[in-house]
């Protein structure tokens, strides 16, 4: 709980820094060249680490492995999403009326850039059209998360 509060406290700062140091980002589309490269690299990370459970189409496996399509877990709060990668996920989770029970291990051995890439890929694939996840966000989340 403490960790969550910490992250929430730091989030606005990260945002402000990002805003001041970079040019203001165009909204969602057109997708930047960086985001495109990140997503392309993310496909490689996805193929090596994620595809066996979440499947090539991102649709997951009924009752076992959650889909990555049209779910708030993927499209919503980016910090929460980064933490799923860092810590894994062990709860019985309900997504769009279906329950998923398989264990997701921690993928904290992935580099920050790899996590940013794979999440950027996932958030912009399978019909998803959410914004990129940046290296800075992952680094800040990992620092707050402690691993």
């Amino acid at each position, binding site marked *: 709980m403490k960790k969550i509060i910490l992250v929430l406290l730091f989030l606005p700062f990260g945002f402000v820094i990002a805003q001041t140091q970079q040019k203001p980002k165009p909204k969602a589309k057109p997708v930047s060249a960086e985001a495109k490269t990140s997503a392309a690299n993310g*496909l490689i990370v996805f193929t090596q680490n994620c595809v*066996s459970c979440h499947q*090539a189409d991102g649709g997951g496996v009924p009752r076992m492995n959650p889909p990555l399509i049209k779910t708030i877990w993927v499209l919503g709060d980016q910090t929460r999403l980064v933490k799923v990668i860092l810590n894994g996920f062990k709860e019985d989770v309900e997504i769009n009326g279906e329950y998923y029970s398989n264990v997701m*291990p921690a993928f904290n051995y992935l580099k920050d850039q790899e996590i940013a890439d794979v999440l950027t890929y996932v958030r912009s694939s399978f019909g998803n059209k959410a914004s990129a996840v940046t290296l800075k966000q992952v680094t800040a989340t990992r620092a707050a998360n402690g691993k």
Partner: protein
Amino acid sequence: MKKTTTKIAVITAAIAGATLFFAAKTVPIKSKKAADEAGLKLPTGFSASIVADNLGQARHIAITNSGDIYVKLARVKNGKGILMLHDKNGDGKADDITGFGDYGGTGMIIKNGYLYASSNENVYRYKLDNRQHVINGTKPEEIVKGLINRHEHETKSVTLDNEGNIYVNIGAYSNSCQEHDRQKGSMGMQPCPILDSAGGIWQFKADKLNQTYGDGTRYATGLRNVVGLDWNQQDNQLFVMQHGRDQLHDIFPDLYTVQQSAVLPAECLYAIKKGDNAGWPYLYYDPMQKKKIMMPEYGGDGKKEAAVNAITPAIAFPGHLAPDGLLFYTGNKFPARYKNGAFIAFHGSWNRAPEPQAGYFVVFVPFENGKPATDKWEVFADNFAGSADKAQSGRADHRPCGLAQGPDGSLYVSDDSKGTIYKISYNGK
């Protein structure tokens, strides 16, 4: 950027190539004839009809002596966890569907005047009248309670012998008993602590109430997860279908390729005697080498044989096909070669990705004297997926789960994806 694009192109080409290779290689392609009206492909002389549809997540099923069907749902639907299907007008379709039982689960079997059902923690039984209808759906007897459920391999399947015992699968809440479940490179716990309370078959009394672990016997161990199990009447012994471990490549990428990981290890049919050990998590069965191989979590390298003494499968199937139903056919309606043989419902794979998925069919293995007649198996009912593309992508329309034999000798198959119940009959001469 160009480099990345090239890389992706290479990966895509590799996946496409492997898809063609493995589609041709590992999955026996059945007859080319068209699917019948129920959408299934069956051997000559057999036909399938749909008894009911959209029931929910239909797991195991049991048939009464007049052909009514009890269906156990994985999750409660409209407040009911067990459905009874009745065909009032005799047109082969269930037109009177009632329900009871406010819990989800998998186990469903009729034996000696009772309907047995399981949740993911408990086993219940309901007294039947002489038409094998449940007398009071609201008041089952709880015969076993408090079995472990940690949201992985949590379903409890049941079967009974002829001496008043019930056999309950308690699946391991783990893939391979690693320190960190499914984590890349994490090694196995030594000894595996899960085996004390799961990863095996437990035997309880079929007529004693409120039993828990202390009242039962760990009948067989070293079984990662069993969903399909049945008592073989010819040989008077238990047979189980194990779901083999997942993710050899994900967890040990230096030891297993993606292609090896898609076909290893075998899904195994075991003939079980009291006290048997099938070897999980210390070993897996490699159907190509025909050997019990040491698990990489316990020091294996894909070739080293296991040091643990364990039983050998009666027959081995390709990896990850997910056997969810097992039935020994004791009827007389099918041709003689089917008598006493094993039907196995394969739910279909997920852990072959990015290789093409497989399964989604019912297999037959002929038996002689209580043992498989050969090491060959045949696809009996195919195309539950709806098409080859849907099978290979894993986006199957229907997924076979439960099997039961009707009083007229027909074979019933449940589907836990769309909730369809199929009846397969023989009309040949």
